[in-house]
């Protein structure tokens, strides 16, 4: 009886494109650059391809979620901090931008970066108590912050209460609005990808894998977790600020569960740890979610259940599967 096992090998072209050998020929170059080019060009061309303003708006919303999914993946799989409350970043960034715009009269081009930086500082400080501790505490605290923040705003009737802050300025034109957020998404996608391979990114990954060794190397773990949280919350607040300028309104719904759960579902579907997978996951989930908006909160049920299914059946995600197929091939081998 012949026994076989599956063997997985790197494709020849992957090995041939290792480091400098990528320049050997057009074929090798395109093997490396094609996926990235397709992604970039595809996203940039989208606003022209979709029918009508409604769908262009959807693309902007997709990018907002994509940024959230990106930072969820970054924090969870490259630093080891699972954030169950992405909505908190959106809410903080959104309210800050709205306040800066309506009270101080600053234009979006100023409020967005300001909201990102101030928001990052606020979020990092608020999350500081749980950083020296095990990951489960970070999950608990991030889960609570958006829920409690929404209740506080509602109960104390501050910051516009349940009505929210109206009359927020929008972008100077729809094309600016559209491409600003798309560019931000691409910028941070490739930026964070670069970051995790730089020296400081290695420290983050080491903190996730093996924090005792990092401590024994004289590095203050809490400091680097705080840096990672600062970066991630900055991006989150930035996307919240953009959202507020798109909707021209800021309210309690910024803290809603959508923003907390959909990024997680997108990450799980798109492929955890790949950074581009979560972005793709958003491109799939957000349009479906928008279509389901007519059914009320059923959409949240929908992607919660998908999330549970993926986690429980430990599916690897689209991009992980895709990358595996792209870089490696499988064959049956006699034992």
């Amino acid at each position: 009886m012949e026994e076989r096992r599956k063997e997985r090998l790197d494709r020849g072209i992957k090995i041939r494109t290792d480091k400098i050998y990528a320049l050997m020929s057009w074929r090798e170059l395109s093997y490396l650059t094609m996926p990235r080019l397709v992604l970039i060009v595809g996203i940039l061309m989208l606003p022209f391809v979709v029918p009508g303003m409604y769908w262009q708006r959807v693309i902007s919303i997709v990018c907002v979620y994509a940024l959230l999914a990106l930072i969820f993946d970054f924090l969870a799989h490259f630093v080891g901090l699972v954030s169950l409350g992405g909505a908190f970043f959106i809410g903080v960034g959104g309210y800050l931008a709205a306040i800066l715009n309506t009270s101080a009269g600053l234009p979006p081009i100023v409020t967005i970066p300001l909201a990102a930086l101030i928001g990052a500082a606020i979020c990092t400080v608020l999350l500081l108590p749980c950083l020296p501790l095990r990951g489960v505490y970070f999950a608990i605290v991030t889960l609570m912050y958006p829920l409690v923040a929404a209740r506080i705003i509602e109960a104390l009737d501050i910051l516009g209460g349940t009505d929210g802050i109206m009359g927020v300025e929008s972008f100077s034109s729809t094309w600016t609005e559209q491409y600003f957020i798309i560019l931000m998404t691409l910028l941070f996608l490739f930026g964070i990808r670069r970051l995790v391979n730089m020296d400081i990114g290695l420290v983050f990954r080491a903190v996730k894998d093996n924090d005792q060794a990092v401590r024994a190397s004289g590095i203050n773990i809490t400091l680097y977790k705080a840096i990672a949280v600062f970066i991630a919350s900055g991006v989150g607040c930035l996307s919240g600020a953009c959202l507020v300028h798109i909707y021209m309104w800021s309210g309690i719904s910024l803290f809603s569960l959508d923003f907390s759960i959909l990024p997680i579902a997108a990450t799980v579907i798109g492929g955890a740890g790949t950074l581009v997978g979560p972005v793709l996951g958003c491109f799939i989930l957000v349009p479906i979610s928008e279509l389901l908006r007519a059914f009320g909160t059923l959409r949240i049920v929908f992607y919660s259940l998908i999330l549970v299914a993926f986690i429980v059946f430990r599916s690897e995600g689209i991009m992980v599967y895709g990358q595996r197929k792209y870089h490696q091939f499988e064959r049956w081998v006699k034992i």
Partner: protein
Amino acid sequence: MGILIYGTINSVALALMALGFALVYGISRLPNFGHGALYVVTGFITWSFFRGLGVNYLISIPISIIIIGIIGALIYQFILIRVRGMATSEIIASYAIGVAILEGLRWGGFKGMTYTLPVFLEGSIDIGGIPVDFHRMIVVGAGAGVVIFLWFFTHHTRIGLALRGMAQDERASLMLGIDSDFMAVVAMGFGSALAGLAAVLLLPLGNIVVESGYNVLILAIAVCIVGGLGSWMGAVIAAFLIGFAQILTVVYLGSHFQMVVALLAIILTLILRPSGLFGRQKELEERV
């Protein structure tokens, strides 16, 4: 005096909410973020039996508690057990299930203020000049009863001792022949039933709304963290601490701040003493 009475009532209510969560975490190390969902579902099940089907109230209550216990055990058996041991996946999965249930209830038509359960006994008596309704006194009595029952159960019955053994040291329990997977399912069943018990006791004091699911989750987690994850005694004491703190803020600052108190309690605990009052995870485990 009023503070004393209402503080006690509030504290017992918190303890009831938290004990189910503490039980499940203590035994199977699963932080069940769907706890709040189970709470609200019990309310709706009781309502459906009582007002919808016309079953006697005194019978609807135990039936719903049993049903929710079974539902919880089934959820664990078929879904959560597959991610057993992977901390972050457990949290995400149980949270997602909880959210799916709660938002599903929100969509499924259980909207608005019209869903209530009647109190067990109408009327009130005066204690030291403060009117206290009977139902609230029943809550306190039931709470005390639950704690005593739990103590008795985990110290003197076979299953209870097995659960306690698992809570203390899972590997040792495995070596003694205790099936940890099955015990975890049992624990989840009990925890869900406790959530259901809390629901039937506390929901008559207000309306059945989906929001209370999230509130209960936050409060249960706050109590368990302050008391120490995994310690039942700690949970009870923490419930009193937070309960009285909440009543004090209501009296002196206004009733909006109750959730803030819970959140502040969590943050303070994490800063000062992360393992909580009686937590068993000290030092090596609490600091990564």
